[in-house]
């Protein structure tokens, strides 16, 4: 293909992106109008309640942490062609193992307990996703199905524990564990709601970016992403990468579960994650699994998620309306991609 043709194609694809984005905003506007509200007010509310207030900004940052981990849980396996739909379940699996550790070894000092909880969360999420990776690498079961189904198992396992053996006897009405020891709680910045796990999350994203670009294994991962068949011919052990990348993705999701428990909720309960795994999936696909785009995309979706509650309170709109906006965003990205027509 000549450079000119390529540039025309690129221009065409930008135009298509722009067109679809415009259409998406229009659709959202119409939806708000149907509810009899002013779209301008709604957009203004989103802005003023999240980005232009201190509390709002903190809320956005707090939501970003699990989303960053969950997005990386999708992005890492996606670079070797694996579709990890199991971030949600892996968050619960990591939360479960971290909770077990902190409830069992509550007397450990903080500097041992916190890293141990992080490791436990990574092991829980990593094993959970590693199973799916192994099934895939052996050619037994697509990771799409196994990860989706294992979501239910992980969430129900947490429920079973907190309704049963792990239930806090003092909070009789709520299915939840006892509060975790203070030594097992992540420190926060100043008096804010933002905890240190966001630093770890950002470091993971930056580290993966460096890893992909600079290391030998990053080169091999990019080769598999480019053409797994050719990569295999170059001696890259493709199925090993499939298993390991799934396990690493799961471990990162497990860290999100650990951080939710340790920094915010202090108790394990069935509400550990209100769908962070699924929104993370959306983020990763919106970002094209590119670490450098994952941070801004996470920020955008955290703003949307945060504004859902605000819109409900101030505008009387159902909070789920931001999910519609997220879904529209996803559609725009999918439609804006250069398509190959089915033959």
């Amino acid at each position, binding site marked *: 293909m000549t450079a000119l043709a390529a540039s025309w194609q690129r221009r065409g694809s930008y135009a298509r992106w722009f067109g679809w984005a415009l259409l998406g905003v229009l659709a959202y506007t119409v939806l708000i109008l149907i509810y009899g509200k002013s779209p301008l007010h709604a957009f203004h509310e989103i802005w003023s309640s999240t980005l232009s207030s201190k509390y709002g900004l903190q809320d956005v940052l707090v939501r970003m942490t699990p989303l960053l981990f969950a997005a990386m849980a999708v992005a890492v396996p996606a670079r070797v062609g694996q579709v990890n739909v199991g971030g949600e379940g892996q968050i619960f699996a990591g939360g479960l193992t971290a909770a077990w550790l902190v409830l069992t070894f509550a007397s450990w000092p903080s500097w041992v307990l916190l890293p141990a909880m992080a490791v436990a969360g990574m092991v829980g999420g990593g094993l959970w996703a590693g199973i799916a990776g192994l099934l895939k690498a052996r050619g037994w079961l697509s990771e799409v199905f196994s990860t989706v189904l294992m979501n239910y198992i992980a969430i129900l396992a947490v429920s079973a524990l907190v309704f049963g053996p792990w239930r806090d006897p003092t909070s009789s009405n709520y299915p939840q564990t006892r509060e975790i020891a203070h030594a097992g709680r992540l420190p926060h910045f100043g008096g804010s709601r933002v905890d240190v796990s966001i630093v770890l999350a950002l470091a993971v994203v930056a580290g993966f970016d460096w890893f992909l670009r600079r*290391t*030998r294994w990053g*080169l091999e991962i990019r*080769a598999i992403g*480019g053409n797994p*068949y*050719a990569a295999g*011919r*170059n*001696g890259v052990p493709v199925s090993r990468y499939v298993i390991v990348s799934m396990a690493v993705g799961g471990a990162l999701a497990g860290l999100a579960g650990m951080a939710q428990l340790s920094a915010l909720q202090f108790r394990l309960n069935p509400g550990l994650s209100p769908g962070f795994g699924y929104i993370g999936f959306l983020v990763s696909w919106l970002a094209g699994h590119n670490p450098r785009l994952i941070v801004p995309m996470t920020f955008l979706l955290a703003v949307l998620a945060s504004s859902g509650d605000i819109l409900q309170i101030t505008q009387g709109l159902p909070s789920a309306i931001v999910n519609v906006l997220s879904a529209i965003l996803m559609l725009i990205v999918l439609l804006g991609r250069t398509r190959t027509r089915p033959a």
Partner: protein
Amino acid sequence: MSALALTERRADLPAQTPPLAARGIVKRFGEIVAVDHADLDVGPGIHALLGENGAGKSTLVKTLYGYYRPDEGELFLDGKRVEIKSPADARRLGIGLVFQQFTLIPALTVAENVALFLPDLRVVLRPDDIAERIRETAVRYGLAVDPAPRVGTLSSPEQQRVEILRVLLAGARILIFDEPTSVLPAQEIDALFDVLRKLRDDGYPIVFITHKLPEVFAVADMVTVMRRGAVVGTAPIGAVTEDELVERMFGGVAPHGAPARPAAARETGPPVMELRAVTSSGQGRPLVDLDLAIRAGEIVGVAGVAGNGQQELCDTVVGLARIRKGERLLFGRDASRWSVRRIRDAGVGFVPESALGQELIWNMTLEENIALGSPRRFSRRKGLALDWSGVRASWRSDFAELGLNLPDPRQRAGTLSGGNAQRFAVARELARRPGLLVTLYPTRGLDVPTTAAVHELLLQARDRGCGVLLVSQDLNELVALSDRILVMRDARVVAELDPDAADAYEIGALMTGRTG
């Protein structure tokens, strides 16, 4: 050569208009001309279309069936010009194609698969009706098929019978069979020929594609030979001999411009690679009890019609296919269980046909592709960093030495032309200084200068003491480059020849299993 009947096209054809005729068909795929101004008359009787793999037979009949749109040329049905834009058009006009790979839906029953194809299918299906029609036609032509079971549970000969049945029931009056014997075990082939004869006797014109000479003489009334996309002759079966057909298929050209083999190269070293009674696993045609040795400083050529185990041979040597029985030795060490990575690290290089799709990563730069090929050589700090200046140094020295002068190592592999990509792929492997180079159709589809450049690289490698396994379909290439030629048929080595003594005609005869 006395192949007058072959050269005078259509000399013995009946004077009346053939039911189906193609004139001047041209079909290109990118730069490759798959069918080159081909004419074909399909008259009454069984018409064999003979040629090597890649000669354009399948492509030609697929244009008759509307599966491909020809770039040039015309089709005539009963003397009237027709436009066939899709398989649906072809079926409406009464042309039926039995594909080489079956197009049945495994989860549906035989009757349902047939029903899908019926032009007069009712909105509400009447299974008994369809089953009855299947039985009727099946009995008539000896196509033993039960309408009830799911297609997925049937053997390949049974599935083929279903394919034939549904083409017949769909109302085809001209039948095309694309290599029908390739999916059949030997004992089923005669049964298929009986079916073909019964169909012929009922007045169906039949086109029968094959690359096997004995089949042509067993069943065909007419034969048309294709070579490199062009029709090179048509004749009634009675008017040609096997020798003449082999001559036509392979061109029978004497080796030309053979780069002189230095005498020193003949005194080859110890074996760099040995397969001992190897049985491989995997799809395709696994090797059975195959023995092969390649010595340092020799080129071992492998000839064979595609699909006779050459791909599996290469996959087995480089570790992509597992060894179930037997041993693989590399450089004197038992390497039967080694991974692809370990085999490459030990000094084995591999160049497939169209490396751009099979070995190079198109969206990575040339530098990155070089590093990917030798990760151990270019790793620094245990892999935490890559030695890009080392890659560039290798680019400046090794690649330049190999005569590869591409402008920019930072361009993406996908921006190279097919020929340059292939040259780059060969150079990339040779820059690793392998002790063994495995190449599978390395020059297929390349133009003449690029082919010469690749040949030059292979000879350089051999002169440096590298053992080379060269699988090719170009017999001239094999004769010109090889120190020994092996012929593969049915996943076995059936002959070993001295290239100085062998000619393309003899090799072709061995490849096709010509009797005598």
